[in-house]
């Protein structure tokens, strides 16, 4: 029935950051590489053309660049005792669609990782004892160390053109008094570009944080502070803080994306092909179920196509990688009752809290000015930078002002108690739109036995296949941490001397709200690790069960980070690519013996 295409060396499912990085690395290794992207072709021109792209209604409100959930969504329930319901409108998270994926519409906060978060369970057990970790908390070590990943963080920053201020380089202090982060791990090189300018909001946050005894630093940002050419020859222009960043295609070539930073180097290659509008249904396995033979997809005209390949890279968004593994029978599905199985296990998110401070008209925060990655942050309560012992929770949280640009339909906020309409609403909106500071505690989120992903028994996608089902809710540890972070961040907000403050945090008994945006930082479900009983992938992101399938992405994180995930996603992808190039291609088979 299906048309069978000519075999390729490697097929990549999804062309976001991980797909683009893998395509570059594997073509460099001489492979014939085909990338299948289910959405349309997208690029700075025409999709980010000025002034058409400066359109809040089309992009932020009607969500033009995000996943088309009329065709496929996820179902969500809070516990195994509930019936899952489909996420009918995009809300809490915004997966991407089309060439560039979420890497085209992201903001650009570009962190590495706090080293202890790569060995979360070991670190907490060593410092606080085994009993400190709640029984149902399933945090694990990644199976790879910061030192092993450092060269890949370094290279990814060069590819992205990241702006920031180092604290130490090869052990030498370079960032004191210049906006460096004293809690940051050592680096082999400075950032490719100096840190971006600070908005008035970020300046206020930095000053107030210093006053209360915290140590502010400049956010590392994949928005350029100056002109830049990356190692692939891709050019970027300086970011002008246009304020249309997250949710938009950057018209300035200033926000790193697969489209701007990698695709131009791939396009001329005879051994690379990108096929947009190609929706992969499954990975095909041979009769032993231990080797993939390629993938089957639906093309733009609705035809079913079989694409044979020697190597399959699942480079789709976190949710879709997990679903493809479940639909293809790669790895044993996780069962929350027995705790056995690996695919769907350790699904985790981000534990956010937000405080908004409102000022008089002599404080001009001009919130329409913004860049997605820029800002000022503190790490005093991130990772394990403080003694968790007296507080009884696992996890930390950076806090920051990250003024990415607030627009009037979705981006206005008023002090608590303001009516939602009428003359009083008008007056408050006019009084406060350009006189407010929004700050976030971007909390790490841990994994638990009961938070997991599997296939929904009722709801189906446009092709008749089961939707992914998310079983997820906030746990006691999450609420406790959230309240702690609100209290600490509240001190910064108070020190700014605002007229009014609004707090958006979690209370005991709160359930996961699928309708309100939190972050798109979904983690886990196809996690990496050192034991095939508790991880779907080995430390090189290779499936334990099907050795020619590699699965880069935040789906490999055993728990959520305090920092934004993209930096670690990119570094792990380069790390995995190196193992494929230097080990796997010479001797295809498991890179780690189970």
């Amino acid at each position, binding site marked *: 029935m299906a048309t069978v295409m000519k075999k390729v060396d490697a097929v990549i499912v999804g062309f976001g950051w991980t797909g683009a990085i893998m395509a570059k690395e594997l073509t460099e290794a001489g492979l014939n590489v085909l990338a299948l992207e289910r959405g349309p072709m997208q690029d700075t021109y025409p999709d980010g053309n000025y002034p058409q792209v400066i359109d809040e209604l089309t992009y932020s409100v009607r969500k033009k660049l995000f996943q088309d*959930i*009329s065709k496929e969504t996820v179902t969500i329930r809070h516990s195994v005792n509930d019936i899952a*319901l489909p996420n*009918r*409108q995009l809300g809490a998270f915004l997966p991407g669609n089309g060439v560039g994926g979420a890497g085209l519409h992201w903001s650009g906060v570009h962190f590495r990782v706090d080293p202890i978060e790569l060995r979360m369970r070991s670190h907490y057990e060593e410092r606080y004892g085994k009993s400190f970790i709640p029984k149902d908390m399933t945090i694990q070590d990644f199976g790879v160390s910061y030192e092993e990943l450092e060269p890949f963080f370094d290279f990814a920053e060069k590819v992205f053109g990241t702006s920031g201020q180092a604290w130490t380089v090869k052990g030498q202090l370079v960032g004191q008094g210049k906006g460096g982060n004293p809690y940051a791990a050592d680096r082999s090189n400075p950032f490719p570009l100096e840190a971006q300018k600070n908005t008035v909001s970020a300046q206020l946050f930095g000053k107030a944080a210093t006053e209360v005894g915290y140590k502010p630093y400049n956010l590392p940002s994949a928005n350029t502070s100056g002109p830049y050419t990356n190692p692939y020859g891709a050019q970027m*222009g300086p970011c002008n803080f246009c304020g249309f960043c997250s949710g938009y295609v950057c018209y300035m070539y200033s926000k790193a994306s697969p489209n701007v930073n990698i695709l131009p180097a791939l396009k001329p290659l005879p051994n690379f*092909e990108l096929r947009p509008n190609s929706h992969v249904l499954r990975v095909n396995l041979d009769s032993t179920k231990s080797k993939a033979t390629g993938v089957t997809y639906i093309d733009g005209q609705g035809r079913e196509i079989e694409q044979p390949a020697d190597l399959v890279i699942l480079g789709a968004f976190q949710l879709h990688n997990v679903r493809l593994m479940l639909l293809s029978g790669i790895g044993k599905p996780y069962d929350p009752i027995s705790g056995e199985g690996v695919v769907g296990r350790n699904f985790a998110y981000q534990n956010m809290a937000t405080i908004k401070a409102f000022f008089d008209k002599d404080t001009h925060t*001009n919130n*329409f000015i913004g860049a997605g990655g820029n800002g000022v942050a503190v790490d005093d309560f991130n990772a394990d930078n403080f003694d968790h012992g007296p507080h009884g929770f696992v996890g930390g949280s950076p806090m920051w002002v990250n003024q990415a640009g607030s627009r009037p339909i979705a981006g206005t906020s008023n002090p608590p108690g303001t009516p939602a309409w009428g003359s009083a609403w008008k007056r408050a909106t*006019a009084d406060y739109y350009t006189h407010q500071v929004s700050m976030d505690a971007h909390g790490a989120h841990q994994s638990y036995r009961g938070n997991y992903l599997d296939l929904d028994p009722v709801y189906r996608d446009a092709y008749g296949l089961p939707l992914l089902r998310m079983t997820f809710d906030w746990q006691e540890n999450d609420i406790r941490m959230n309240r702690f972070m609100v209290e600490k961040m509240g001190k910064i907000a108070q020190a700014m001397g605002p007229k009014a403050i609004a707090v958006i945090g979690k209370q005991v008994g709160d359930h996961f709200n699928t309708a309100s945006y939190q972050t798109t930082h979904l983690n886990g479900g196809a996690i990496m690790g050192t034991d095939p009983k508790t991880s779907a992938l080995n430390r090189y992101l290779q499936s334990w069960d099907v050795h020619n399938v590699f699965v880069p992405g935040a789906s490999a994180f055993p728990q959520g980070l305090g920092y934004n995930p993209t930096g670690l996603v990119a570094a792990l992808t380069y790390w995995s690519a190196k193992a494929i190039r230097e080990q796997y291609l010479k001797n295809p088979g498991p890179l780690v013996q189970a």
Partner: protein
Amino acid sequence: MSDQDRDNPRREFLRKSLTLIPVVTLAGTGLGSSVLQAAPESTPAPAVPKPAAAGAGEYQPSFFTAEEWAFINAAVAQLIPNDAQGPGALEAGVPEYIDRQMNTPYAAGALWYMQGPFNADAAPEMGWQSKLVPKDIYRLGIAATDQWVKGLSGKTFAEQDSATRDDLLKQLEAGKPQFDAVPAKIFFNLLLQNTKEGFFCDPIHGGNKGMVGWTMIGFPGARADFMDWVERNEQYPFPAVSIRGERA
């Protein structure tokens, strides 16, 4: 892929020094469409008098009936009134905006996952679970509201005085009236959301005429270049511009 053409504008762009105020391509003032539309001679008089509001008169709705149009005009004028703060929803062309939106995929629910089974009574934290789409919600919500209001006073919503309309909208907002066809809160929330969209969107979508919404709050619209203003604790001095190049 032949993307040679796509690459050229990029190189050119990077070479250019950046001057980004859009070129004015229309002599328009936001009233251009009215010139093209002769008022149909046979239009029946609206069943109810329209609210005395300037600016929204010329547009002819293509989705809403005359009765619905009267409701929309009356309701948005309460949600964002013309007051001491400046022009309101009617002056901004919000009714035109909402009517035009009704002919988009959004209003048909085509941007949402709409396969059943539906569980309309799910808890709010489960997000949208209704089978209804914006077109249905307006049609059913306006009819139910007018029927409810007539039952109270014998007059439609649009025929009430301003204070009464405010009170009725507050009751809708609180979900007080129990409508069979559509929950009052869902109807109110959609109306309020679309009203704010129409007040603050780029004028290209039919609302925010004269950029009155942006001017009220100090949003500069499509300028989108603040390189020299990032660090300054000062009021931004330049008026808004639109995608079409209009200046406020």
